[in-house]
């Protein structure tokens, strides 16, 4: 692709991103803002593809353009209008809208200063040229990592501690969500058109999740993208009237939630017992161990995202419609 054409594409992409971000933030209506944010995510996925970051593009396509929009829309729908959108706010909030102009100006100036500082730091970094020490270290040791996709190698081998702690962060978030109360009310059983959509979309999403998990070893993909795709399948089920969105009941759900952290710890501790460093895989087993951890992590990430969409503890079978499950 020649340079001029690429530059035109870049300018159009950047302009789209800026105007969508500005529009999403400027509008006062909540659901309008969420739709603009979803469109922003779509364009962002194309931008990641353009910048040769297909792993990130996959995650953005699944989460930014799909799941987080669904999550925000569910929240907008549920809240009585005054709580989340600006239409008719309680008195104390209305007072806060008319914050005095000085404060607004100060904060705006502060934000401009932050942007200028960031721009200066980046310009300095670009002036010094690319620092490839880490990238070189990755490409030199990639062969011994058990996978050939460098991003997966970093996440599950070289920086496995970070990913373990990230899964712990996700677990904390989901425990917080569960502790805060019951799930939002469910949805009525789907009509015929929606039902036919569910019938093919859910199996295709589940299959795609499995494909992404498997392909992540040697091409863009992996536990995060697969988990998000699996969660999307559950979100569709929930929208079609399944109250628990296909989540397993009670104890099993808790096991699934903790599966990512748990499998990481089991593998790490077993390696310690065998006389290796914590999470220091023997090269011969690395590929298999990574796939094992990633499978557990996928389930945990999917469960986290689904519970995030539910917004609280699943409430099976309240007697109305939807499927009946004992907890």
């Amino acid at each position: 692709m020649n340079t001029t054409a690429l530059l035109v594409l870049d300018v159009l992409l950047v302009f789209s991103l800026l105007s969508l971000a500005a529009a999403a933030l400027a509008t006062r209506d909540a659901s309008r803002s969420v739709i603009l944010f979803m469109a922003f995510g779509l364009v962002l996925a194309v931008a990641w593809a353009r910048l040769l970051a297909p792993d990130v593009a996959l995650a953005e396509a699944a989460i930014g353009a799909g799941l987080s929009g669904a999550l925000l829309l569910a929240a907008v729908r549920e809240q009585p209008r005054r709580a989340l959108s600006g239409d008719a706010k309680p008195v104390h909030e209305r007072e806060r809208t008319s914050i005095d102009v000085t404060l607004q100006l100060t904060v705006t100036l502060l934000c401009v200063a932050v942007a200028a500082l960031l721009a200066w730091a980046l310009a300095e970094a670009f002036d010094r040229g690319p620092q490839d020490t880490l990238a070189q270290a990755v490409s030199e040791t990639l062969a011994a990592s058990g996978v050939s996709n460098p991003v997966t190698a970093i996440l599950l081998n070289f920086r496995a501690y970070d990913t373990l702690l990230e899964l712990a962060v996700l677990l904390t978030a989901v425990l917080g969500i569960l502790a805060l109360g019951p799930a939002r009310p469910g949805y009525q059983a789907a009509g015929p058109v929606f039902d036919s959509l569910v019938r093919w979309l859910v199996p295709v999403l589940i299959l795609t999740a499995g494909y992404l998990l498997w392909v992540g070893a040697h091409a863009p993909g992996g536990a995060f993208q697969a988990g998000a795709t699996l969660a999307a399948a559950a979100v569709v089920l929930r929208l079609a009237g399944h109250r628990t969105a296909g989540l397993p009941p009670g104890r099993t759900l808790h096991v699934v939630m903790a599966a990512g952290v748990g499998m990481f710890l089991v593998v790490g501790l077993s390696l310690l017992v065998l006389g290796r460093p914590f999470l220091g895989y023997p090269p011969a087993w690395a590929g298999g161990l990574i796939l094992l951890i990633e499978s557990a992590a996928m389930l945990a990430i999917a469960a986290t995202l689904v519970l995030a969409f539910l917004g609280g503890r699943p409430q099976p079978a309240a007697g109305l419609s939807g499927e009946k499950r004992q907890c």
Partner: protein
Amino acid sequence: MSELLTVSALGLMLSLFLGLLRVVRGPSTGDRMLATQLIGTAGVGLLLLLSLLLKQTALIDVALILALLAAVAAAAFTGQQRETGDD
């Protein structure tokens, strides 16, 4: 051939951009969602062209996920009626 693909990619970007105008303008939520669908379809096409132009086969998978998740987003938007509650 490569020139043709490049020109087509720019054409699709233009199409996506026109869709953005409708997303920003509205007027109804349905209009915005319809325009988001167009952006999705144009994005899928653009990703497929980029996969050839940038020699990144993986972008085909990105296009697939984008296509599937656009359907999820539309389902979430139009939503179903809540069982209870006051929507």
